[in-house]
C-alpha cells in the first residue's frame, strides 16, 4: 500500500503531520473561545525575542565585577535576580552555583526538561534529549569531554538534578585576562552552555591581554 493511498483514504484519525495537528487544535480552541491568538503571538514573542541567555549573561557579568552582588546571588538568588528584573515563570525559586578552579557544577533534569527560563530562555534540544538526561548523572566527566571540557581529576564535579521546582544557574569562572573588560564586554563572553555547566567562559583570541 502506497503512502498516497493511505493519505487519500484517511485511515488515521488524526493528521500525522504535527504541523497540521497543531493547526487543527489551535483553530478548534480559538473557535471555542478557549485561547486568544494574540496571546499566543505574545507568548512566542516573549521567548523568541525577550527572554533568553543574554539575561543570564548580564547576571554573570554583574556578579564578576560586583562582589557584593555576587554574595547576594549566592545566598538569595531569587531576590538578587529580581534586582535585575529577572524572575517569574520557571524561575520562581532560583539557586546560583559558583564554579571555581576546584569545583565544577553541571545542571540536568533527568525526569523531564526543567530549566531556568527567566535567565536562560527555553532549553536547547540537547538538554532535553535522552542522551544528555541519562548520562549527565552517571558519566558527567564523559559528557563534559564531549562538550570539549576535560576536567582534571582533582576537580570536584557536582551534578544538580532538577527534580523539584528549584531552578539552577551556574556562575562560571571569570576568564583569566578579562580584568580590563567592562560589564557589557564581559557579558558578551558568557555563553548559555557555561551557565548550564557544560563549558567554561573563554576570551576570544583577539582580546587576550598580555
Amino acid at each position, binding site marked *: 500500500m502506497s503512502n498516497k493511498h493511505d493519505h487519500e483514504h484517511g485511515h488515521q484519525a488524526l493528521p500525522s503531520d504535527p504541523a497540521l495537528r497543531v493547526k487543527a487544535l489551535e483553530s478548534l480552541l480559538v473557535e*471555542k473561545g478557549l485561547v486568544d491568538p494574540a496571546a499566543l503571538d505574545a507568548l512566542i514573542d516573549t521567548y523568541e525575542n525577550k527572554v533568553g541567555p543574554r539575561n543570564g549573561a548580564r547576571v554573570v557579568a554583574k556578579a564578576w565585577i560586583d562582589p557584593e552582588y555576587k554574595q547576594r546571588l549566592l545566598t538569595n538568588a531569587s531576590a538578587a535576580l529580581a534586582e535585575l528584573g529577572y524572575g517569574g515563570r520557571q524561575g520562581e525559586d532560583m539557586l546560583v552555583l559558583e564554579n571555581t578552579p576546584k569545583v565544577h557544577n553541571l545542571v540536568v533534569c533527568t525526569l523531564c526538561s526543567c530549566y531556568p527560563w527567566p535567565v536562560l530562555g527555553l532549553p536547547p534540544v540537547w538538554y532535553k534529549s535522552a*542522551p544528555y538526561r541519562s548520562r549527565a548523572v552517571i558519566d558527567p566527566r564523559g559528557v563534559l569531554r564531549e562538550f570539549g571540557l576535560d576536567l582534571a581529576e582533582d576537580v570536584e*564535579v557536582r551534578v544538580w538534578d532538577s527534580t523539584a521546582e528549584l531552578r539552577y544557574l551556574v556562575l562560571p569562572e571569570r576568564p583569566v585576562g578579562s580584568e580590563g573588560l567592562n560589564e557589557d564586554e564581559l557579558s558578551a563572553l558568557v555563553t548559555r552552555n557555561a551557565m548550564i555547566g557544560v563549558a567554561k567562559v573563554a576570551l576570544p583570541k583577539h582580546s587576550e591581554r598580555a
Partner: protein
Amino acid sequence: MNGIHDMGGMQGLGSLEYEEDEPVFHARWEARAFAISLAAGALRKWNIDAGRHQIELIPAADYLRMSYYEKWMERLIRLLVKSGVVTPAEVESGKPDSTSTKSTPPLTADMVAPGTARGGSARRNVQVAPRFRAGQQVRARNVHPSGHTRLPRYARGKTGTIQRDHGVFVFPDTNAQFLGEAPQHVYSVRFEARDLWGEQASPRDSVFIDMWDNYLEPI
C-alpha cells in the same frame, strides 16, 4: 511510575547531538504548540504535575521516537479531553460540536508580560515541621509508585546527606492526581557518585537531588 522518562543513569540512549546557533523553535508549529500549551494552562483545569504525568504516560517506544513538542501536543490533547474541555470528536474534526458554547479566553495578550514576570511558585508559606535537618544522613525510600513521582529510580534505596532545606513546596505525587498539595519540605540531598554508581565514579564527584520529605527516611 517506572517509566522511560526516568532515565537518569541509563546507557545506550544514543550519542549527544549538538547544534550550533540553535533557534528557539525549529518550526512554526513548535512555537504554536508551545504557546497553545501555556495559554491552555490558564484554563486552570490541571496543574504542572498532572501535565508532567501525562507525558510520562506516553508509551516508551513513542516517547523515545516523538520530538519534544510532539510530546507537548500529545499531553495537551490528553489533558483537554480528560478535563472535558474538548471532546475526542472535536479533536478529530478540528471543529466545535454543535452543542459547544463559546467561552472567553482566560489569557489575553496584555496578560502575557505580567503573567510571565509573576510565574506561579510551588512554594507554600505554611508552617510544616521539617523531618530532617542539614547535615543529617538519610536514605531515599525504595518505593515504586505507579503514579507520578519526582523520586528518580537511580536514587532509591541510596544514602545521602541533607545539604540544605529549601522550604515548603507542593508535593507532586498527590497534586498530579488532584489529591491535594500536601505541602512539605524539600531538601537538597547530596549523594556521593560512588554510592550511586560504584567504583567507576570519581571519589570526588557527587549528585545533588531535590527531594521532598516523603521521599526520605532517617538512618
